[in-house]
């Protein structure tokens, strides 16, 4: 045996070497015999540690998947798959266009038709009566105005000069005079003295 081969046999396997052996075993399903691994117990222990770590990963992943897919969930999934397959095979349902669709008939259809007709009739009558009432009111107002206007015209008096209105104007003017004669604010008296009165202005 050459020195190189002897060295190769005695040198410990590194992580990559162990992974290669494991990968080959996993790919083929059979672990190839490795001379060093057979003879070296530390390397065998490290290989066993690697294999056990990978097995833990596999078990964890499988357990998690199984926990998330219990038999009930799988049964529901199975049923759903076949519902979808059936639906896919069933010929497409064509919905009739409303014009050609069968008219909806029910026992209450006559009654509801009568109710609708009565409601429509009620509405029309209501609107008609409303319009008539409004017409009557406006006619009555027009007649009253026509009656009042000739009497006022006959008297020859301007409506603005009626007694009530005159009294109100006089009161307003006397109020104005009173406020002008009253010098309420002493500070404004000088200003007031300078301001010419309407009577003082030249005509």
């Amino acid at each position, binding site marked *: 045996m050459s020195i190189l081969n002897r060295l190769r046999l005695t040198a410990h396997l590194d992580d990559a070497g162990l992974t290669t052996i494991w990968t080959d075993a996993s790919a083929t399903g059979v672990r190839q015999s490795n001379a060093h691994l057979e003879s070296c117990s530390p390397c065998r222990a490290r290989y066993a540690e690697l294999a056990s770590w990978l097995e833990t990963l596999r078990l964890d992943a499988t357990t998690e*998947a199984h926990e998330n897919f219990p038999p009930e969930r799988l049964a529901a999934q199975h049923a759903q798959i076949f519902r979808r397959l059936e639906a896919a095979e069933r010929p497409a349902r064509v919905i009739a266009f409303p014009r050609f669709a069968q008219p909806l008939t029910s026992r209450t259809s006559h009654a509801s038709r009568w109710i609708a007709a009565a409601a429509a009739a009620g509405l029309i009558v209501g609107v008609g009566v409303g319009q008539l009432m409004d017409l009557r009111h406006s006619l009555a107002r027009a007649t009253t105005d026509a009656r009042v206007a000739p009497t006022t015209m006959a008297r020859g008096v301007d409506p603005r000069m009626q007694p009530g209105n005159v009294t109100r104007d006089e009161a307003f003017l006397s109020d104005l005079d009173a406020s002008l004669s009253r010098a309420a604010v002493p500070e404004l008296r000088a200003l007031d003295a300078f301001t010419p009165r309407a009577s003082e202005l030249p005509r």
Partner: protein
Amino acid sequence: MTGAQAAGFTGREADSSAASAVKALQAGGRHAEARERYAELVGRHQRRASRIAFHYMRDVAEADEAVQDAFVKAYSHLSSFREELPFEVWFTRILINGCLDRIKARTRRERWIAPMPDGPAGERDFGERVAGNDPSPEDQLLARERRERLARALAKLPERQRSVFMLSHYEGCTSREVSVVTGLNESTVRVHLFRAIRKLRTLLGEGHAAETKVEKRRVHS
């Protein structure tokens, strides 16, 4: 030949005959019978399919939908299935492609929409609610943390390495099967598997070391 391998071959033969029968029934227009026969195939592969989809999606509802889509798609495209390929491999390819499409769509969606926080009634709690009460709460917490760490580490792997690792290690597929499913050649599959394990070891080792450091600091303070 081991017992499991023998069982696998028997299963494959059964799959092959069921798939051929479904195909013939579909061609003859006997859809109800075809569906009945297809139920056999669904029953045999449903659990495994859900597991694979969950490893990819990390979300129960999305994994569920991905599995449904894959079975519906496989049924409607069964005419293109070639018997020389095991049904399992053909179906897994459909499933994985669907999952990858969904992940792409989700990534696009998440770019624009803020994620919902995991509420007490969230999907993530479903497993916890239905899980058996054998392990102690502490064990459950540790297991959950370990799984989350593993999921984070797996998510950091490139897509091909992740697929190869999950199919080879979790599902026990040989490099030839993985090569058929992924479209990579066998030696590339082995390289990806090797790299995936090395990277996972680094990532999980680093994560574990960092957590231990934090724990030690907490104890000292």
